[in-house]
Structures are given as C-alpha cells and as structure tokens.
C-alpha cells in the first residue's frame, strides 16, 4: 500500500528539468574564473608581503650589526675591516637591494 502511494507520489512529484540555460552556465564559469584570478592575486600579494617582511628584517639586522661597531675603535674616516659586523650589514643591505630590484622587475 505504502509502496503504491510512494510510486504515485513519485509520478506526481517528478518534474521535467528546465531548458538548459547557457547564460546561467557562463555566469557560473565566469564567477569561477574571477575567483581563480582573485586567488592568484592573493597569493602574489602574500608572497610580496613575505619578501618585504624579510627585507625589513634584513635592514633591521643590518642596523643592529652596524650599531655594534665601536666608533672609537674604527674612528671617523678609518677603513672598516672586511670581516667586521658593519661589512656584514652592508652585504645584507646589498642583498636586500638586489632582491628588491628583482621583485620590481617581476
């Protein structure tokens, strides 16, 4: 009895699918495309942020290292030894400038 009612209900509730709607499908695909673009843009922004944070870290480290050089031992106008913390700071700064220049090109 229940099976019979269910069959009749199924027959009544069955509905034809609406006509295919190419505009609807195109809209969904366009939204997906937009989302992909947005995701790529977000990834690029995050990567850039990480690079810039690293560069900022390098600058801060450079200044910290430079601050450790004793002015009285180096003296104004004296040559700075190659192995000194100051030279290391300069090297880090140069690396940062190089990375920044390459990012700007990309």
């Amino acid at each position, binding site marked *: 009895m229940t099976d019979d009612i269910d069959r009749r209900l199924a027959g009544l509730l069955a509905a*034809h699918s609406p*006509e295919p*709607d190419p505009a609807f499908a195109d809209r969904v695909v366009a939204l*997906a495309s937009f989302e992909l673009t947005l995701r790529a843009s977000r990834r690029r922004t995050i990567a850039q942020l990480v690079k810039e944070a690293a560069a900022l870290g390098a600058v801060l480290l450079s200044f910290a290292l430079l601050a450790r050089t004793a002015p009285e031992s180096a003296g104004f106008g004296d040559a700075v030894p190659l192995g000194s913390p100051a030279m290391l700071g300069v090297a880090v700064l140069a690396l940062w400038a190089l990375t920044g220049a390459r990012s700007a090109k990309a």
Partner: protein
Amino acid sequence: MNAAGEAELARRAAGGDLAAFAVLVRAHESGLRRYTRRLAGDDGDDLAQETLLAGWRALGQLREEGAMAGWLRTIATRRFLDHRRSLAGKAQLVELDLVAASGADNRGQQRIAIDRALNRLPDRERAAALLVFAEGHSHSEAAEILRIPLGTLKSVIARARAALIPLLEGALQ
C-alpha cells in the same frame, strides 16, 4: 557523459581547468536547477549557482565516479537547510514561482497544486520528499544527504507522505 569521462573532467577542473568545469556545469545545471527551484522556490537558481561554485571548490574531495549529480544535490540540500536554520525566527516562507505555471490547463493547475503542497511542508520534509519521491534517491542516500539517521529519515518521509496525500488527493484519484 559516462562516469569515467565525468571523473576525468572533475580531476581537470579541480586542477584549475575552467574549460573542463564549464563542461561539467553544462551537463548538470539543468537537473540541479530543477531540484533547487522546487526546494528553494524563487531562490532556486541562486542556490544552484552557489552549489556549483561550492562543488568546484571541493572537487578534489569527490572520490566516487559518476556520483556528481547526487553530490551536488547533497551540497545544495545542506546549504539550503543551513541557510534556513540561520534564519530561524524570521519569516521563512519559500516563494514558489507559480506565475510561470499559471496556465489554465489541467497540467498547469496540477503543477501549481503540487508546488503549493510541497511549499507547505517544513524544509526538511520537503527536501526529503523531493530527494526520495522526485529525485529517486534511496532512503539511506537521502538520510546521508540530510545528515540524519535512517530511522529519522523514515519518520520524516512518513510525515511528508501523510501531509502530501490529502493535499494531492484530487490528483491521486
């Protein structure tokens, strides 16, 4: 489209191939909109759109070949019920588009009566009735889609059946 072809398209679409996704959308949009329009009334096409995009984002999780139609109905049903639950306490009447079906012939009138009968069912009973009676899912499939135990699903279906029989009495005779 066969199951293997659909699985291959799904794999490509999950990898960002929009052309493959477009083929899947064209293959499923009509059947999905039929279901969502009856489930959510005037919001049916919006629900179908959200469902297809949510499905696209989660395509990597689709493991079973040939299961996409049922999977999309699962997403649509859960999104619909979650949304309706979030509106608890607010006006929740589903607006069915009866104007398009308001032709004076008997079939048009019958369609209106059926849609009205569905509209009067609570959301979960309407979803269960559509899944089992209109979409041909088994009770266990419908229970899984609705995330309820099988026994509860059977009770929901029994209530939906009891509510639909008197409302559709004229059509059933």
